[in-house]
């Protein structure tokens, strides 16, 4: 046994000033500040949503979904005679659907396959490079992707502003989100499922298509929905690529409108200013609904 000698009570000479009341007061004040600042943090979202609902709700009717946006003269006449501004945002809704569907068609297969590749090649140098590039792409400002859509598609492919150019810009935004979420969900598939399939002699591509993708399907779907909701409200890249149109257009090589572009037009036209709130309410409703569905899927999976 080692011998231990305890010296003494340590430094009994040290006098403690009783600061406990002050410290407890500071502690309480800090907590109050945290609560107040947290309330301030969430107040904008509450204010924004209520503003949109209050100002926009009245404008939403059947016409809103079936009619194209009015021209400024029609709107002016309606305002002069005290009527509700006629028309709706049908050209925006169809345009948004067209642009986002094409963007998804481009981004989903590339994103999922790249995600699978990254999952299958963990730790390899080239895979790390791709992962880092994907992270860099995720940080590229959307307006810069608008320039890219213009340079790559508007100037060279469609020889003019087009839905397709917008889809290309948005697909580059979606791509890194899908890559990342695919890789992450693949990691959660139990290794033994894969091994069991391999032991049965199932070919590699069938393991991916029949085992890996189905067993991580809800995760993939969540990632895709979040990626779509992320680009639905994008305005800046579309300004540089799809330009806008007053008609319903389903030709991907022609200029096309989109809901956020219509909001931008309404905002810039004093006669149509009343339409901004209903269009914004619709847009935000769409984005939040997709978000909500994605969150539901996550919650169900976690159970």
């Amino acid at each position, binding site marked *: 046994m080692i011998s231990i000698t305890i010296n003494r009570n340590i430094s009994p000479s040290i006098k403690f000033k009783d600061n406990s009341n002050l410290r407890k007061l500071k502690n309480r004040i800090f907590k109050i500040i945290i609560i107040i600042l947290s309330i301030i*943090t969430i107040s904008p979202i509450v204010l924004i949503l209520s503003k949109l609902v209050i100002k926009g709700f009245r404008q939403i009717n059947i016409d809103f979904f079936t009619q194209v946006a009015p021209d400024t003269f029609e709107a002016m006449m309606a305002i002069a005679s005290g009527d509700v501004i006629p028309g709706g945002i049908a050209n925006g809704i169809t345009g948004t659907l067209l642009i986002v569907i094409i963007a998804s068609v481009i981004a989903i297969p590339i994103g999922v396959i790249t995600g699978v590749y990254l999952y299958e090649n963990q730790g390899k140098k080239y895979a790390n490079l791709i992962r880092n590039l994907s*992270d860099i792409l995720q940080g590229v400002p959307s307006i810069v992707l608008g320039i890219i859509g213009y340079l790559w598609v508007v100037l060279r492919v469609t020889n003019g502003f087009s839905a397709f150019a917008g889809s290309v810009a948005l697909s580059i935004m979606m791509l890194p989100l899908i890559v990342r979420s695919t890789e992450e969900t693949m990691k959660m598939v139990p290794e033994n499922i894969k091994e069991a399939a391999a032991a049965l002699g199932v070919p590699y591509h069938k393991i991916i298509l029949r085992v890996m993708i189905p067993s991580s399907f809800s995760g993939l779907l969540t990632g895709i929905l979040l990626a779509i909701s992320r680009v639905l409200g994008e305005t800046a890249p579309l300004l540089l690529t799809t330009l806008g149109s007053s008609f319903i257009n389903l030709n991907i090589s022609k200029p096309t409108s989109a809901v956020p572009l219509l909001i931008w037009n309404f*905002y810039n036209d004093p006669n149509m200013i009343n339409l901004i709130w209903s269009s914004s309410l619709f847009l935000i409703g769409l984005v939040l609904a997709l978000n909500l569905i994605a969150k539901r899927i996550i919650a169900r999976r976690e159970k």
Partner: protein
Amino acid sequence: MNSEKITKHVLFTVSLIILIISTGILASLIKGAMPAFKEFGLKFIIAPDWNPTEGRESYGALVFIFGTITSSLLALILCIPLAFSTSLFIAEYFKKTRIASILKTLVDLLAGVPSIVYGLWGFYVLRPAIISLGINDQGFGIFTSSLILAIMIIPYATSLSNEVIAMVPDELKEAAYSLGATRLEVIFRVIIPNARSGIVASYILALGRALGETMAVTMLIGNANVIPKSIFSTGNSMASIIANQFGEADGLKLSSLIAIGLLLFAITAIVNAFGKFVINKLS
């Protein structure tokens, strides 16, 4: 060739697309920006004039770089106290309670609001408030856009910091409590030192977001192509000048706008890479 090899080749080939897109973006931006850099040289970056008058055309990026960086930094400064408090609310004070999950959901909703809707709200709600407070007559300016940017980046500034704050081991907090520390002291002496790099990283990534924001800033910054005299003056940002003038631009002006796009790409990439570096140091 057997099917396994073919599949591996397909996976590899598709993954090349990311590489092609990334290098392609950089190459296209550089190529598009070349005429401007040939005409003005690297002085383009520090030249403060933006004069599209034919015959006397002269373009420089300084006004916009200045506007983007000041509005984003100011946004970050305004955002930090809010994001920091919210993280402590969610991940410490009310950890795992219903009220914390409601707050978290609301903060997440902030990320779902499109930029243009923030712009509208800023224009119709924030701007009149700023006018009535007498901050400036028009309500436009660096400060107004920073305010809206600060709200927009809160979800990015909180998400990672929530995680790292919640991850500080209970044993460390208990050790401090057992020595008589108050919660405030535990937060500043134990939680923050242990979660520091994650918190810093999330603020850097939020800054990266603010730098690239376009629509809300365009609607509020005032679009004046001058160096702002104070944070309450009007100015312009890199993303805004592109959004506003790209449509009718050609020739040298178009090239100058693409050059600004290239610079914006570079600045955000550097900021984001720095954020990632801090995160990697963490793990």
